[in-house]
């Protein structure tokens, strides 16, 4: 049985847009800065079936964690800004998964 979702759970189109935006930020700094939509599709597909919501949640959380890790200039800001998940933030409902993904990096605890 599906878990009961909170009323304000993010809709699939927004989920996709957020995943795409985060992926764009992650990839915009590579090489010539030209984004390949095909690569995005392939990466999301590596998390599962792209028709499933779960897949997009997994992709989003991984991308958010990767962005937090790769652009972590300052541990203080990581805690006071990046990982300060207030209830009014769009990524609030995914906070546990984002943190779990972040903690997969071997030196994640040292950074925090």
């Amino acid at each position, binding site marked *: 049985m599906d878990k009961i979702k909170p009323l304000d759970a993010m809709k699939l189109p927004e989920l996709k847009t957020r995943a795409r935006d985060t992926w764009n*930020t992650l990839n*915009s*700094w590579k090489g010539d800065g030209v984004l390949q939509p095909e690569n995005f599709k392939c990466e999301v597909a590596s998390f599962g079936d792209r028709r499933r919501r779960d897949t997009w949640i997994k992709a989003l959380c991984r991308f958010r964690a990767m*962005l*937090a*890790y*790769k*652009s*972590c*200039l*300052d*541990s*203080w*800001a*990581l805690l006071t*800004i*990046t990982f*300060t998940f207030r209830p009014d*933030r769009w990524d609030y409902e995914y906070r546990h998964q984002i943190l779990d993904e972040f903690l997969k990096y071997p*030196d994640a605890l*040292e*950074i*925090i």
Partner: protein
Amino acid sequence: MGFLNWWQSEKDELEGSETQMDLLGQSQELAPPRKRVDGAIVFRRFTKAIQANGGDEDAYQNSIVEETRELFDCVVDELYQGTGAKRGRRNTLPQAAQEAYMVNESLSANQLEQLEGTIGGDSQRDVNEHIQSVVKQQSQRTRKWLPW
């Protein structure tokens, strides 16, 4: 306007003023609590300026990405790895890199503080993008003065 004139008009807002009664019951102005400015203080002013303009965590994150790319031609991760620094600890970066961040964040904060209350838009995204573009432009200008 020279610094001293500017300071006279801004000091109350920047430092506030506190007074205390002396033994004779007269009010004495206390010396403001000042300290040597380091990169962390400047960085906090910078992040505060982003938030004061309505920027959220994405505005902060993307500003850092833009700033780093413009100043150093790489990403934060590469900067830490390439210099043998410890990720997340700015004080382990080479002095030249810390100075570049510090000067750019100071100048960007000046720009953002002047814009306070003027940045609007239909969405959070618009506000963030405006802030990011201010940081990006300042970073491009700062870069011209760096030796690499």
